């Protein structure tokens, strides 16, 4: 397989998505088959590409002689591309049932499918400029998805999202420019590209730029103090909140942070400096902050969104430890959190489509009426808490081992933060489970007689994710050893 596959997996969903409004489908079923077909085809192509690992690069476009839009595949890109190409077909399947109760389906699926290609572009970007371009495009194509319902609330939320993202991107852009000036190349190279001779005595300036760039990119991961947009964006249809706001968009943020940290600035340059401390403190704070906000929240989807805020900072925590082991922890949490959170969001979505209930206090006794959905929800809750035997424990273990190995007292504080957050996670997830399964003596089940499990299209993804959480939790070695290889290339 040659490098020509790279533009295909990026452009196929974009082109196919744009065609959705103009193609004459006749009925809804044909459209569903077309969309699922395209997404599945692209996912299969992507997986084939990840298995074959084609070498080389593919230049899409040249701005100038050395500024190009070019794609290639490396270890970290493989991880991100694998996550999205496995999750996208499942999420699309799920959206078909979900979207029956929303309007403007064609518009929705257009942007939903295009986003697949754009995210792929971020995973495959060979250099910092390409990554930045796709990153900006991601903001723009996901904007209509947030304001899909066109309620006032949705429009305000999308506006917040736009301001935060564009503001962040502006800071990130400063970083990109400095990498271009002070780097030996714009490409991603394990260990970083900075040319120490060019920097001379401007080390502190570059560290400052790194901090700005870090904050810029981490706006998408909803790190404190830029976390407000994510819970607000929960007004979007659930497939969007589940796939984009728990996986694709927010993890694109984490992915870009890791790229600039490990592949552009380089950990050797950053480790042990004040810049590392400056970024680690807000990350550790966000871990606890996100969880405590989740605990306070009574709206089911918003609670999960705050939980995402906290969990993404787990990933960033691994990244800012700036060691190969930290990268393994960060990447493993990126994979495992994707599975856990998409599962819990899909459960929330199932509750919303089937019953219209959105608040946690309305969920009394639901466990008996929707046993399959709430079983999956419980598994995802236990996994998020980090019960051994489920995948959350594995990534936490790796993150913490990296922190302990670093010998940095601030990282020890991070370990404590992780455990506090685990406790808070137990509280905000298990109260829902207990409420659903044990509504208490004398609970009148006739008040929720309309509640039942959804159809197989919604249940199949839930089952797949629940099984995945157990399998990853009991036998993570295949994944961990691969992540270890990526990390080893950084040494």
């Amino acid at each position, binding site marked *: 397989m040659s490098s020509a596959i790279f533009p295909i997996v990026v452009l196929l969903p974009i082109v196919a998505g744009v065609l959705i409004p103009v193609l004459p489908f006749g009925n809804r079923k044909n459209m569903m088959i077309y969309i699922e077909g395209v997404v599945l085809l692209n996912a299969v192509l992507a997986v084939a590409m990840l298995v074959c690992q084609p070498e080389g690069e593919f230049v899409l476009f040249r701005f100038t002689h050395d500024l190009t839009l070019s794609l290639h595949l490396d270890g970290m890109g493989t991880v991100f591309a694998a996550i999205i190409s496995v999750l996208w077909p499942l999420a699309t399947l799920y959206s078909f049932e979900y979207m029956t109760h929303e309007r403007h389906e064609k518009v929705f699926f257009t942007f939903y499918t295009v986003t697949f290609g754009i995210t792929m572009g971020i995973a495959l970007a060979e250099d910092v400029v390409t990554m930045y371009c796709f990153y900006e495009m991601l903001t723009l194509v996901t904007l209509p998805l947030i304001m899909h319902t066109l309620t006032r609330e949705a429009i305000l939320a999308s506006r917040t999202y736009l301001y935060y993202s564009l503001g962040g991107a502006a800071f990130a852009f400063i970083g990109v420019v400095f990498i271009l000036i002070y780097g030996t190349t714009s490409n991603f190279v394990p260990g970083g590209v900075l040319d120490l001779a060019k920097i001379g005595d401007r080390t502190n300036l570059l560290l400052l730029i790194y901090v700005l760039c870090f904050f810029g990119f981490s706006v998408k991961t909803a790190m404190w103090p830029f976390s407000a947009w994510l819970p607000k964006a929960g007004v979007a249809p659930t497939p969007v909140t589940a796939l984009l706001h728990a996986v694709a968009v927010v993890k694109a943020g984490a992915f870009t942070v890791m790229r600039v940290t490990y592949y552009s600035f380089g950990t050797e340059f950053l480790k042990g400096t004040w810049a590392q401390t400056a970024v680690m403190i807000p990350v550790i704070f966000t871990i606890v902050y996100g969880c405590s906000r989740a605990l306070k929240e009574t709206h089911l989807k918003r609670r999960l969104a705050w939980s995402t805020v906290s969990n993404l900072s787990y990933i960033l925590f691994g990244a800012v430890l700036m060691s190969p082991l930290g990268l393994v922890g960060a990447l493993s949490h990126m994979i495992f959190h994707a599975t856990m959170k998409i599962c819990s969001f899909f459960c929330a979505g199932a509750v919303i489509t089937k019953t219209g209930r959105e608040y946690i206090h309305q969920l009394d006794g639901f466990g008996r009426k929707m046993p399959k959905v709430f079983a999956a929800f419980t598994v995802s809750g236990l996994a998020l808490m980090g*019960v*051994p035997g489920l995948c959350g424990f*594995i990534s936490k273990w790796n993150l913490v*081992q990296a922190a302990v190995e670093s010998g940095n007292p601030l990282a020890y504080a991070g*370990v404590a933060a992780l455990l506090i957050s*685990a406790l808070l996670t137990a509280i905000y997830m298990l109260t829902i489970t*207990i409420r659903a399964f*044990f509504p208490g*003596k004398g609970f009148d089940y006739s008040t929720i007689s309309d509640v039942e499990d959804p159809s197989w299209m919604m249940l199949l993804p839930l089952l797949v994710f629940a099984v995945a959480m157990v399998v990853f939790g009991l036998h993570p070695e295949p994944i961990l050893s691969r992540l270890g290889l990526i990390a080893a290339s950084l040494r």
Partner: protein
Amino acid sequence: MGALLLLPVFLPVVAGTYLLVSLAVEKQKRKAEGGELPEPDEEARKKLHTRVLAVLVVSAVLAVVVSWSGDHSVTLFELMKGIPVYFRVDDIGRLFVTLVSIVWVLVGVYSFVYMEHEGKEQRFFGFYLIVYGVLVALCFSGNLVTLYMFYEIMTLTSMPMVLHNGSHESIMAALKYLFYSMCGAYLGLFAIFFLYRYCDTLTFTAGGTLNPELLGNNTWILLIAVFAALIGFGAKAGMFPLHAWLPTAHPVAPSPASAVLSGVIAKAGVLAIIRVVFYIVGADFIRGTWVQTAWMTLALLTVFMGSMMAFREKIFKKRLAYSTVSQVSYVLFGLSVLSPVGMTGALLHVIFHMFIKCALFLTAGTFIFRTGKTRVEELYGIGKQMPLTVWCYTFASLALIGIPPTSGFVSKWYLAQGALSANVGAFGWAGPAILLVSALLTAGYLLPVTTNGFFPGNKANPEELPRLSEPKGMLIPLAILAALTVLLGIFPNPLISFAGQIASSVL
């Protein structure tokens, strides 16, 4: 032979899961037909009880036989590279698994009668069996990560026993239990993270596996971590400051569940602490440090505080729960002095307290079952109604107070000797003094039930207190437990030498 270790773990877990799943399936089927699940009739109950008893006895016999037939070990699978889920029997695991099995079978037999008035029996026995399997796994755990794994699972699977009756109060209590336990488990996990880095291996090794070279100058953080583990695993054992869940959660559970929660599951916290301190960190690492001082202080504080609270408490089961808080900290104090004699005393007290507290809670259960009385001041004249039960209660109480020749005397003797012989400064005499005061308080909160029960004075009219039948199914397990509490005090030597052998192997 090693694979046989898995049988007593999986058999009850699978059987319990089967009970729960078949219950759920049956419910769904009934709902589809538009009806509710009827209350099981006498025949169905009998069938359920026979099955549960068969599974319990078979797995208990297996567990005990396998554990005493040699130091078997088996690796279930590799969780991560170098971190296997690994079972191995050693003396301490052998001791715990035997105790757990005896108690679980006896209390199981008791519940066959008792649970009639609580209802939802199939659900209760489902979880009862699962928790047994998990506890056996906990005792067989050969390394710290395996232990932690089953510790968490134990919390999650024992929680439904707490909220069994479904009242608002019991659900709140279950949540409190869950979150305190989780908090404790995470504190323990904090220590495990650091121990994994600074120890040669997390496999339990008598005397510890700490590697000073790996540790370097990180002693301060490891001390903090070990302290966190003590507090954290101490939560299950009801040690201050994470003790508050225990008096809330134990009493609201059905009485047999309270018995095993207080008698057995609280000891799981003790087991975890023994494993961390004596089999991973090594007693020498914390000897003479602030961690040892803090540990002794907290244990003694809890001993005193628990007794005081029990003394003031009027609800019978809650009083017993506070008593557990106090008594389990006797064990922790015995461990904290880090001397072989103290540890011998602690292990003996684990054994004796397990039988005593189960007997006491089962008495409380019998009172509730036959009369519905839950408060201490309602129990005037109870001895006229149920003399045999109250006699069993009295023997167990005397043992807990520590009156010779009952078992409690033996363990307290060793605990006091341990404190006096260890080089722990003022704690050497303060410890035994507090134990003594607490023993007085124990007499003060336990014996009135007996005296008022047999001699109600003018508080109750003997004419209005008919003799009540005491069901055999409840009385026999209770009598066996009460007899054990006395007999083990008269013939303690095999136990003393066995506990001493464990203590001297790690200290």
